[in-house]
């Protein structure tokens, strides 16, 4: 109960921040909220089940594209609803056909999926509608986008917390450890995975939809940038993907680090970033939070 209160208090504080922040700081906040939402939504499925999905950008891009296509014909909330429905529908379709793939095959499939969606949208736009770039002229300020993104991040974390307390959460964790045992315990594997995958994908689609008005101009190459998928995975894993706050703990410092590096070392930042990455894999194999736990355990033992 106290934790919930702290979390809510933090949320309120974060919601008030933009009233005092500069445009640039607000931009940073949006970026952080976006990646916290993405990483948390991703971990909702992948963190618990250990199915590493690289399809993040397939849904993220679909969300953005939905806004680009519909923003002039529907009111904004209806556009968001459409994006959510399309994301959910796509997730169901993908989930039904793929969730029996496991390990590396699932990783590669999801990566291919993002590319397929991009190619198909490109082909459709080029051959059928005869355009490619689309414009999003919505009357939304950066502050509006931030609040929406913050809400999405809160929903992603809140939903994860809630699921963790339900049968679904228990089932997902069991699947992450051993699917055979999970099935023998009576867990309906396909349904469980499908529900979580769809929830996760729907949230990711919404993140893309909410983020897109900031770009004004949308084309497949811009919205289906595979780096987004990779960053999401890395952030979640860095913090600890199977923990509630793990994705957040991974996303924020990594995002700020990216920003800091690209500001101060515009020419050599990929090298720093890469080295840092490798260092993290070696030093914190199970994520920051697990690393902290280890440290605490070690000190605790010493204390005794």
């Amino acid at each position, binding site marked *: 109960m106290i934790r919930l209160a702290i979390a809510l208090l933090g949320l309120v504080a974060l919601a008030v921040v933009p009233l005092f922040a500069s445009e640039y700081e607000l931009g940073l906040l949006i970026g952080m909220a976006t990646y916290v939402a993405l990483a948390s939504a991703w971990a909702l499925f992948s963190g618990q089940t250990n199915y590493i999905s690289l399809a993040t950008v397939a849904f993220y891009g679909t969300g953005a594209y939905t806004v680009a296509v519909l923003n002039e014909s529907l009111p904004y909330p209806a556009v968001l609803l459409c994006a959510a429905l399309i994301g959910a529908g796509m997730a169901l379709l993908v989930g039904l056909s793929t969730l029996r793939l496991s390990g590396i095959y699932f990783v590669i499939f999801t990566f291919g999926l993002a590319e397929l969606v991009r190619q198909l949208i490109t082909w459709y736009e080029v051959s059928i509608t005869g355009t490619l770039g689309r414009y999003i002229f919505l009357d939304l300020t950066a502050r509006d986008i931030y609040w929406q993104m913050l809400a999405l991040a809160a929903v992603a974390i809140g939903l994860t917390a809630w699921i963790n307390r339900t049968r679904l959460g228990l089932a997902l964790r069991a699947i992450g450890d051993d699917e055979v045992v999970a099935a023998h315990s009576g867990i309906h594997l396909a349904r469980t995975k499908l529900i979580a995958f769809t929830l996760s994908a729907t949230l990711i689609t919404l993140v893309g939809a909410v983020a897109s008005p900031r770009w004004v101009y949308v084309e497949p190459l811009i919205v289906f940038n595979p*780096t987004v998928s990779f960053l999401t995975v890395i952030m979640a894993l860095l913090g600890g993907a199977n923990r509630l706050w793990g994705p957040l703990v991974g996303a924020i410092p990594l995002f700020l680090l990216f920003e800091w590096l*690209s500001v101060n070392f*515009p020419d050599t930042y990929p090298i720093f970033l890469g080295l840092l990455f490798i260092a993290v894999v070696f030093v914190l194999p199970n994520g920051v939070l697990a690393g902290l736990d280890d440290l605490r355990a070690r000190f605790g033992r010493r204390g005794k």
Partner: protein
Amino acid sequence: MTITRRTTLRALASGVAMTMLLGANLAHSADETVKIGYAVAKTGPNATGAGITTIPNYELWVKDINAAGGLTMPDGSKRMIEVIEYDDRSSNEDLVRAIERLATKDKVDLILPPWGTGSNLAIAPLMDRFGYPQAAVTAVTDKAPEFAARWKRSYWMLGGGHDYANGLADVLKAAVAAGTINNKIAMVSVADGFGIDLVNGARPSFKEAGLEVVYDKTYPLGTSDFAALMAEAQASGADSFVAFSYPPDSFGMTKTAQSMGYNPKVFYVGVGGAFPIYGQIADGKQEGVMSIGGVNAASPAIKDYFARHTDSAGAPPDSWASAITYASLEMLAQAVERVGLDHGKLAGELSTGTFSTIIGDVKLEDNQLRDLWWVGQWQGGTFVAVNPSDKDGAVAPVIPKPNW
């Protein structure tokens, strides 16, 4: 340099105002710099284009200005340029944030535009809100008039797809009329913003010019093998091969055409055809290849610019957007000299003023640069301009192109 009386008066008037303002500033700090910021792609898919067209020109210009003692202010004083640059990692999200940073944190005096149509559109609302003038050079869009009206301080300087398509149609129509080529065209285009814009412009304008498109295919971004495509184009019986392509594709098609002995009478490729590296790609056999853009190769200013660019960047500039990028910076410097750094005045001056640049005297029409070269051709190792044929410096096209 031709200065109308009105602009002179205005320049004088604002000059006086600025002198008073600057006087105050100068007392505060005698050697204050002008902070100029930009965010361009140094990594990711846009890095290549930015690395060829945008960044070397920004660097050259800053070097030139600072070597001359800095930017001249209306009061005649000079202020050195201090550059703040960021990498947008080819991501619009990062680009938008970098612009916010430049405007609100670094509080730079001027912001130079990023590379690419999408990037320029992505920052246009922000630039408008912060009030910075935005001379979008590397943005080709038919919607330029609409954008210029939407964002009053944006300038669109590279025309639209229709312009280039019409220019090409002109050249081909003339050649058909002269009986040098048949009226059949094999056309391929990349399925991405630029290729689509151009092909959408080309279909109607070719038709209008009485040209028949007998082969019309798009290919996806990232295609590396053009053998099948070129074989079909060759089999189509068209005398003209037209590709609205990106640099790697333009290069690949050239090599494929050479290796398969495909010698259409007109060989036109898109972006990349005017790059200095093209000659190397074509193994020295670029003579007669047409592409987008062009420069008035005979002009001393251009010759001088090419020499300085080669000196500074280690390679000559491309013969399309590079010179215009540099010219846009010259315009900016001259506008600053006339009205100072006030964004509103600067924007007004850019809209209405006439500027003397390496591409000649420039005056924008409705915030757009319309006096451009649409088609160029490699002739004698230089990429010369052939269309519009009535523009000063135009050269007659060589058709048919000599065999590879």
